[in-house]
């Protein structure tokens, strides 16, 4: 037990990094995903096609590869090439990747809304943006909570990939101690930390689902 307390400090520090990467990525990826979904279902064929290709690229290559590319290869790309420090590079990778997944969740949600809702709004004089904002998206939010919960929890765990940029997140901190002390206890403690984080998210999403359960449909 003393040992667990002794290794707490570095693990908590690592958890801080993990949480930062998670929260910033989540907060940025969700709106980007929504924008991508709206473009994807829009009647602008070219833009929609571009988003489709983007989603294919982001889902079709490993997240770790994307992260390595943004950190190591992006500086050498003409025009858009910038050298990002490790933390922003990781955020950019997570945001670009998760936005693709979120976009598909939003798209599925939006397309699950009955055409009658659009017609009902339209005959009342609502414009398309008004219909989306006031009628469609609030209903979408309820429907996509389960898949969003899935992706969000996956994001927490995926943050451990930042070890490839030599960032000290929770898992890398734990591994450092394991290698130093020749004991696997830090792994168990790290697992507990992850479980607590995902439990909080699970409860949060369950709370939202209950809140939206006041209406059916």
């Amino acid at each position, binding site marked *: 037990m003393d040992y667990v307390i002794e290794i707490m400090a570095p693990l908590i520090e690592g958890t801080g990094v993990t949480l930062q990467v998670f929260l910033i990525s989540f907060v940025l990826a969700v709106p980007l995903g929504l924008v991508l979904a709206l473009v994807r279902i829009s009647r602008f064929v070219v833009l929609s096609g571009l988003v489709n290709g983007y989603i294919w690229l982001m889902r079709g290559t490993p997240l770790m590869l994307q992260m390595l590319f943004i950190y190591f290869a992006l500086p050498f790309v003409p025009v858009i090439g910038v050298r990002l420090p490790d933390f922003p590079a990781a955020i950019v990778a997570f945001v670009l990747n998760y936005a693709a997944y979120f976009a598909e969740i939003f798209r599925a949600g939006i397309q699950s809304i*009955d055409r*009658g*809702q659009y*017609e*009902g*709004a*339209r*005959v*009342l*004089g*609502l*414009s398309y943006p*008004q219909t989306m904002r*006031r*009628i469609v998206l*609030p*209903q979408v939010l*309820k429907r996509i909570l389960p898949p969003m919960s899935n992706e969000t929890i996956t994001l927490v765990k995926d943050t451990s990939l930042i070890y490839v940029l030599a960032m000290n997140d929770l898992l890398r901190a734990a591994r450092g101690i394991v290698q130093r002390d020749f004991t696997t206890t830090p792994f168990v403690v790290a697992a507990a930390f992850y479980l607590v984080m995902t439990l909080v998210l699970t409860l949060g999403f369950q709370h939202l689902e209950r809140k939206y359960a*006041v*209406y*059916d*449909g």
Partner: protein
Amino acid sequence: MPSTMASPMIHARDVHKRFAAVEVLKGVSLAVGKGEVVAVIGPSGSGKSTFLRCLNHLETINRGSIDIEGETLVATGADGVCRYSPDADIRRICRKMGMVFQHFNLFPHLTVLQNIIEAPITVKGLRRDEILPKAETLLRKVGLLDKQASYPSRLSGGQKQRVAIARALAMEPDIMLFDEPTSALDPELTGEVLRTIRELAEEHMTMLVVTHEMAFAREVASRVVFMDGGEILEARSAKELFAAPEHPRTRAFLENML
């Protein structure tokens, strides 16, 4: 029968509508005067719902013209090209018409009251307290004031449809379009909805009602239009059409229905 045909509320001429290769409307013309209640009857697939949906631009027509209160929604020139008015005009013109759907299309995430005040606030820019008295009057009128805080899923079909009618009326339309308002209802619930529509008729609301309720058409409609195969085969006063249908297909249809 109103004699305002000089300036009809709805004036549709030679409306053609195709879905892919299927011609659903083959030149439908109809004028509806102020305060008139026109029932549109006919077999399934006759194009009556499609015609109604063309009037407020839920469907786009391929040929013909539609004027609403003297304003052009769509017109076909001598060159045979069908041209719609600019989008802003379309929206303004279509706001003169309220519509009630077969499947209600209430907003499930909003309460009854919120359903009613949504468009006045969002579209007309009214404040909540400006529209609340009107919303309450409408809810009282359709007999659902006590349900204002309920979500639509808690209502019966008949109650849902009455909310939908109140919701449309909250935008103060000059014309009401009803697309089979009782077809999705259990038989014992149609009465309450028809009663509400009848009350509107008594207030001289201009209405176009696509319906399978022959008794309702006979009692409430000033004129009945019989459609079949994408055409209007007969359009006469309710009394005449039901007593002595001229067209053999009208006769066959009515015999089947009654």
